[in-house]
Each structure stands twice: as structure tokens, then as C-alpha cells.
């Protein structure tokens, strides 16, 4: 019985991207991008600098709109609904699709207040409930033990790795379905990086994770599927083992073997 449910969940398509184009003013950053992202998987996005991977991931939660000269065409369906449709509230989208940034950006508030920010905005005022949510989120981010006695400490006193896990807990506190990660470990030391990679593996059973990384080994270690971007296009998008051992496109092979990028 559980197996059938698991299989169903595994095959569900969360994001359907069709012919996505994006321009910063007159410069085209994304060229006819199409991809299907499945649930409860880790999808890695790799490619050389400037290939559009950050732009792509920021389009998935419409954060890219913060830049005024951005224009898009094409369709991105999230759970079957086009996210660019006028009837969609971007606040709703971003609650379901969370984001962790490259440089940890905790608020200059206490650990507790950082995690409670999201739930508070959505109207949860009850102290007991907030305590529960904060504890659960910090546990999911594997940082509860380290911080349970420091909930009132300012987040800026934490180490880089702790701050990043705190930011993850902050995202998890609003119970998203998808977690977007834009090079989350590139500013961290190796030990913190490994901790977060372990965390990602644990989280994928409950969340869909899309991670941009410039570190190919990382993509190889933690992802189920990998998309290779070059000059704004998806060159190849397949199971990770395939991409890394038997890539179909020569450009993918060149990148994987380090001939450029």
C-alpha cells in the first residue's frame, strides 16, 4: 500500500516549464527552456558562470521580477497552474516555493524571531504554536540541538554554516512544497557544506529540492536528476548518473570533464 503511494508521489510533476524565454532588457538570458521537475527529488542545475542557472531558479518563484527590466515569455506551470497568470498571488507562490540564497541572509533578529517571521506573517500569533513551529523547523534543519539554548541570541552571532541552516529552517517554517537553493554552500567551509548536503538528502523525502551549484562533485553526490545549462539553454537534462557517466551531448561531456567553465 505504501509503495503505491510512494510511486504515485514520485512520479508527480511539480514544475512544468515550457518554452521559457527571459530577457534582461535586450540581453536574452534564458533561451527556450523546457523541463519537468518531479516531486521528492533533488534536481541539480549546473553550468559555467553566466549560463542562466541562477536566473532560471529565480524565475521559478518569481523573484527575478524584482529587477524592473526583466521580460519573460513562455509558461511555467506549478502543480498545473501557470505561475504568470494574473490570478496567481505571488505571495502564495513564494510560500509554497521557498528559497535559500548563496550568502546566508538571516535577519538581524534572534534565532527564534528569524524562524517565526514566516508563520507570524501568516497570522499565527499563539505563543505555544510558534514555539512548536520553531522547534520543528530547527529540527528539520538539523540545528535544534545546537541552538535550542540560544533561541534568543542574535542570528549574526552564529557561524556561516549555522546561519545557512537557520535560513533553511526559516524557509521550512512556512511549510513549502519546494525548496529552491541558489548555490547554498559556495560561501561555506567544507564541514558545513557536508552537513547541508546530508540535510538535503534527508529533506527530499518530504520536499522537492532544486539546487543550483557550480560544484559538479556536489551535484554528483546529492542529486537525482541534473540539468546542464549553457548560454541560457538547457543542453541536457537527465538522471544524474547518466549525465556524469554517459552524457549524450558533447558540450555536456566537455563541461563535465573540465574542458571549460
Amino acid at each position, binding site marked *: 500500500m505504501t509503495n503505491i503511494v510512494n510511486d504515485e508521489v514520485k512520479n508527480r510533476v511539480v514544475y512544468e516549464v515550457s518554452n521559457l524565454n527571459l530577457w534582461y532588457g535586450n540581453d536574452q538570458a534564458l533561451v527556450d527552456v523546457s523541463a519537468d521537475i518531479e516531486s521528492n527529488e533533488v534536481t541539480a542545475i549546473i553550468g559555467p558562470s553566466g549560463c542562466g542557472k541562477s536566473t532560471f531558479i529565480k524565475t521559478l518563484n518569481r523573484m527575478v521580477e524584482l529587477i524592473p527590466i526583466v521580460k519573460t515569455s513562455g509558461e511555467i506551470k506549478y502543480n498545473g497552474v501557470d505561475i504568470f497568470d494574473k490570478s496567481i498571488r505571488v505571495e502564495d507562490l513564494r510560500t509554497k516555493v521557498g528559497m535559500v540564497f548563496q550568502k546566508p541572509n538571516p535577519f538581524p533578529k534572534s534565532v527564534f524571531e528569524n524562524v517565526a517571521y*514566516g508563520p507570524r506573517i501568516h497570522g499565527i500569533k499563539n505563543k505555544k504554536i510558534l514555539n512548536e513551529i520553531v522547534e520543528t523547523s530547527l529540527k528539520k534543519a538539523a540545528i535544534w540541538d545546537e541552538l535550542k539554548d540560544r533561541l534568543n541570541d542574535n542570528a549574526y552571532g552564529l557561524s556561516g554554516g549555522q546561519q545557512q541552516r537557520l535560513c533553511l529552517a526559516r524557509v521550512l517554517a512556512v511549510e513549502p512544497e519546494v525548496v529552491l537553493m541558489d548555490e547554498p554552500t559556495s560561501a561555506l567551509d567544507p564541514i558545513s557544506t557536508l552537513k547541508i548536503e546530508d540535510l538535503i538528502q534527508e529533506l527530499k523525502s518530504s520536499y522537492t529540492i532544486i539546487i543550483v551549484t557550480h560544484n559538479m562533485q556536489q551535484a554528483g553526490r546529492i542529486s537525482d536528476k541534473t540539468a546542464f545549462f549553457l548560454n541560457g539553454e538547457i543542453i541536457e537534462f537527465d538522471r544524474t548518473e547518466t549525465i556524469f557517466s554517459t552524457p549524450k551531448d558533447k558540450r555536456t561531456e566537455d563541461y563535465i570533464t573540465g574542458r571549460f567553465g
Partner: protein
Amino acid sequence: MENVPAKKYMSEEKYSKRTARRILLDKIVRWAFSFSILFAVIVLVVLLYQIITKSIGWLDWNFLTGNLSIKPEKAGIRGVILGSLLLMVVVIPVTLFLGVATAIYLEEYAGKSKLKTIITTNISNLASVPSVIFGLLGLAVFGRLFNLGSSILAGGLTLSLLVLPIVVVSSQEAIKAVPGYLRDASYAIGASKWTTIRKVVLPASLPGILTGSILAMSRAIGETAPLVVLGIPTLILKIPNGIFDDFTALPIQIYYWTLDTVLTAEYANLAAATIVVLLTMLFLMNSIAIFIRNKFQKRY
């Protein structure tokens, strides 16, 4: 879109309604906040309109070239304008010399010494001392001690001290903005420090220094309180000839005419006309400053 964070804690309908309210609140408050700017704009427009309308008919060539008089129809502000200009004749060289010298010392000679911190904190404290206090200082030191009474020199020196921080700070920034490689080039051919400053740094920072001194002048030309404390009198019928003479200045004249409006209603019109003259001078000065800044500011 199914959408319930913390599903245990809130029903979907309640959540959706709440989100709608949040988005609406965002729109309303954004709009409401813009009212403050609107308020400021309206006040400015009303202020200028009121003053200009009160001056109509009173601001004419005779007004600008005539002498002061008790009778409002005959009053002219030639002496007053001259007084203000003569004040600037004192303020400009004093503040330029002292202000730029201070800035040069702070930026080129003082390094990170304790003295630099003391002088810098001093200057920023002086910048927030009320102008009346400078008046009291001027009265005691320039008026009484140096026995300059209520002459242009006394007024000019007092105002110079008042606006000195403005010149120092803007000159400092102008000097700081001169890139190191220009100085290096000069030192590398064996030029001394002072020569480098004189021939490389100062010319490069001149636009910023000029802008700063124009700003200081605009401040000085509109200052009233220190001059009143110094004892600048109400009705000066004699036109000042030199900096040791008694005088009156634009803001003082506005002040006295405004105070006496209760006796003679037309004084309000005279005050308004004088204000227009003062504001015009300020407008011209600031336009020149902006022009200098835009035209000569090199981007290194």
C-alpha cells in the same frame, strides 16, 4: 492552488482570506505613505505662492535700488542687499582659507592620529550648535573683546565660524575623492608633499570645494539669529561703505519688518518682497553649485 502553511493551525479559507487582506493592506498603506511627500510638496507650493503674492506690486526697480525709509511706499533695500553682499565678502575668504586649510590638514597630514579624531568630532559638534550660541560668542569676542561692535566684520566673522563645518566637511570629501594614483604620480617625480597638494590635489578637488563654499554661503546669507544677538540695528539709513561700518542684511530686514507688521500692515509686503529677493539669490547660488558639480565633477 492548495496553500496552507502550518496546516494544523489554520483552515485554508481563513488563510486565503488573510492573504487577501495582507495584499490589500500593502496597497493601501503604500498609497497612504505617499501622502507625506504630497504634504511636503503642498506646503512648499503654498509657502512660495503666499510670499510671492504678498510681494506683487511691491517688488519693483525702485524697491531694489532705493534706500530704507519708515514710509513703506518709499522703502528700498539697496543698502540691505549691499550689506548682505559685504557680509559675504568677509565670509568667503575667511571660510575658504580656514576651511580648506583644515580639510587639507585632516586629509593629508593628520593620518589616523588622535588629533584628527578630536578635530573631526569637534567639527561635527560645532555643526549642531544652535546659531544663537554663535551669536553670543560673536557678541562677546568680536563685538566686545575685539571691539568691532555691530560692524560687517563682526557679523562676517561670526557667520564664518557658524558655517565653517560645512566648508570643512565638503572640502574633506572633495580631497578624499582625489585618487591615490594622482598623488603617487606626483611624488614619484620627486615633488614635495606641499607641492603635490598645491599642484595636484587642490586643483582636482576644486569643484567640490567650490560647491561646498557656495552651500556655506547660502546658509550664511540666510542666517538671522547671530546677527540679531550681535546687535544689528533696525533702521540703518546710511549705506555701508566698508567692512567696519554698521550695516543691515536681508534676513534682518525681513525680521524687523515682520515684527512691525502689527503696527504697519504694509511692512508684511515689504518683508515678502525682501524674501523673494533672498530666495532668488539662494536659487541662483544653488544653481551655480549644481552646475559646477555636474560640469566639472570628474569620475575617476
